[in-house]
């Protein structure tokens, strides 16, 4: 028997949107599909909707299970459910796979109606702003004029922030977790190494590998291994793996010897087995391009001027990819705009991945904030 705090069995739904989407790059997407899941019930006043935005490798499957045999719950099942910090007994929660994704929404692996073949390299580059626009069409479809809250971690936090700037009247609260106002050069560098791993894989075929019946597995695997290192902290790796050896002794060769090698290769293989290489490229680019201040001559305070939402900003002490300092920059700009904002810096050893972990204090802060949202 599963725990009573699970949303239980959920079924993804798909909406087809035929209203063309003008992308930030200048490209036009005539029509597209978005796959989404909902948990809880939209109240009569339609005032209790919460949008959960996913990060790089996430999806619409935020909570619950897809079947009774399903062993893996949604990616934020510890946060979303009946009685959980984002309580589905109170809120109507929506998870949506972003445009360009590989979990069911239109993306590079989808069939381009114009050609009858997968989009592949022909899929346009999408940005956080584009995602917000697509999510807004979904909100319209669901009859939601204003969200009680928009919540996200990492790249998901950037979407929550962008919603509050781009569509201020539609967001009452934004919970921006383990995010940043923009990527640092170091972050872009990590993303580019990951992209290079994919782009230089001979099986990539310029992005049109579908036609060749192959997957740039080696590239994806390397990209994920690199990414994974940056999501953990030195401390958490030391505690979990240390210098542990699989067979207890050195073999003086290049096969898997250290536990950390084994772990990373396993994670890389697993990821390469289900994630689309083109989607990975798009997601990392969306991260790189995110910079609301760009159009305000680098003035982040000015960029946040349209925002009217109240904010909860959360960071984690051991997160070096999106460090507390980056979250404090968001807080500072919100303070300068005299917005309602609270900021919690959670002591955690799990690095950037902390936002996905079950930590009592972190979850209590989210719960407390969500409980005070009027619906």
């Amino acid at each position, binding site marked *: 028997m599963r725990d009573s705090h699970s949303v239980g069995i959920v079924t993804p739904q798909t909406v087809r949107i035929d209203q063309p989407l003008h992308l930030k790059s200048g490209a036009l997407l005539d029509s597209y599909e978005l796959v989404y899941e909902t948990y809880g019930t939209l109240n009569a006043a339609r005032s209790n909707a919460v949008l959960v935005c996913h990060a790089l490798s996430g999806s619409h499957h935020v909570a619950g299970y897809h079947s009774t045999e399903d062993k893996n719950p949604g990616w934020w099942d510890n946060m979303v459910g009946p009685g959980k910090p984002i309580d589905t007994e109170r809120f109507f929660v929506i998870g949506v796979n972003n445009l360009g994704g590989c979990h069911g929404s239109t993306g590079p692996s989808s069939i381009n109606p114009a050609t009858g073949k997968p989009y592949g390299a022909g899929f346009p580059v999408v940005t956080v702003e584009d995602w917000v626009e697509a999510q807004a069409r979904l909100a319209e479809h669901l009859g939601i004029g204003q969200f009680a809250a928009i919540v996200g971690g990492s790249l998901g936090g950037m979407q929550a922030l962008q919603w509050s700037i781009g569509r201020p009247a539609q967001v009452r609260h934004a919970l921006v977790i383990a995010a940043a106002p923009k990527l640092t050069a170091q972050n872009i560098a990590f993303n580019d190494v990951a992209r290079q791993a994919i782009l230089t894989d001979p099986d990539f075929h310029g992005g049109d590998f579908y036609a060749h019946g192959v997957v740039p597995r080696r590239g994806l695997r390397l990209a994920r291994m690199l990414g994974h290192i940056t999501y953990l902290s030195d401390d958490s790796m030391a505690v979990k793996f240390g210098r542990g050896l699989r067979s207890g002794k050195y073999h003086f060769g290049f096969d898997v010897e250290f536990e950390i090698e084994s772990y990373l290769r396993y994670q890389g293989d697993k990821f390469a087995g289900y994630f689309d290489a083109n989607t990975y490229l798009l997601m990392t680019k969306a991260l790189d391009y995110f910079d609301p201040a760009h159009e305000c001559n680098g003035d982040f305070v000015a960029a946040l001027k349209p925002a009217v939402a109240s904010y909860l900003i959360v960071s984690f002490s051991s997160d070096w990819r999106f460090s507390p300092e980056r979250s404090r920059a968001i807080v500072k700009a919100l303070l300068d705009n005299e917005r309602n904002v609270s900021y919690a810096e959670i002591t955690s050893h799990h690095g950037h991945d902390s936002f996905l972990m079950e930590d009592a204090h972190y979850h209590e*802060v989210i719960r407390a904030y969500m409980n005070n949202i009027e619906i």
Partner: protein
Amino acid sequence: MSDPGKNLNLLAEARPDFAAIARWVRRDAKVLDLGCGDGSLLRYLARERNVRGYGVEIDDAKVLACVRNGVNVIQGDLESGLSGFESRSFDYVILSLTLQAMKNTEGVVTEMLRVGREGIVSFPNFAYWKNRLNVLGGNMPVSEDLPYQWYDTPNVHLCTLKDFETFCRARDIDVIERRVMTGVNEVRFAPNLLGSTAFYLFKRAA
């Protein structure tokens, strides 16, 4: 919550220091409360003076309490300054019963007057007669205002009214107004002897 107004009235009775501070705060002012605890003072000021308030607090449990109380709280360490706050961005910066526990006392007072147009501090007066009596008797004072033993006290910089005023004079800080209380009563006669808690409203000398 059954009746927040009633709770706040009880709070005002239990914390006469809140009322003392509120008297100095203009309506609709923007207030930063350093070491804001569970946010009670900010809630009190929001109700009594309609302030737009933010608190700074380092302790996890207190930050959580602020979020529960619906008070804007920024988790951070006062000892490392207020670099997250713009100069002259607040009408008042308040340090309520925390001055004596600061390591970098001088730094925090300087930062208060950078970020705020006016500062408000309150602290237990070490020269209060009961404290003097304790010391004369050979012991460090332990009282309602100073509830700690010498070995576990967070109060590393205790001072008297006279000390604080000397401190201000030496740093071009103008005391705008002083209030001295013992419990719920204001003390006007021999305050450095008869007052247990001191309140100062101050600003940078022009």
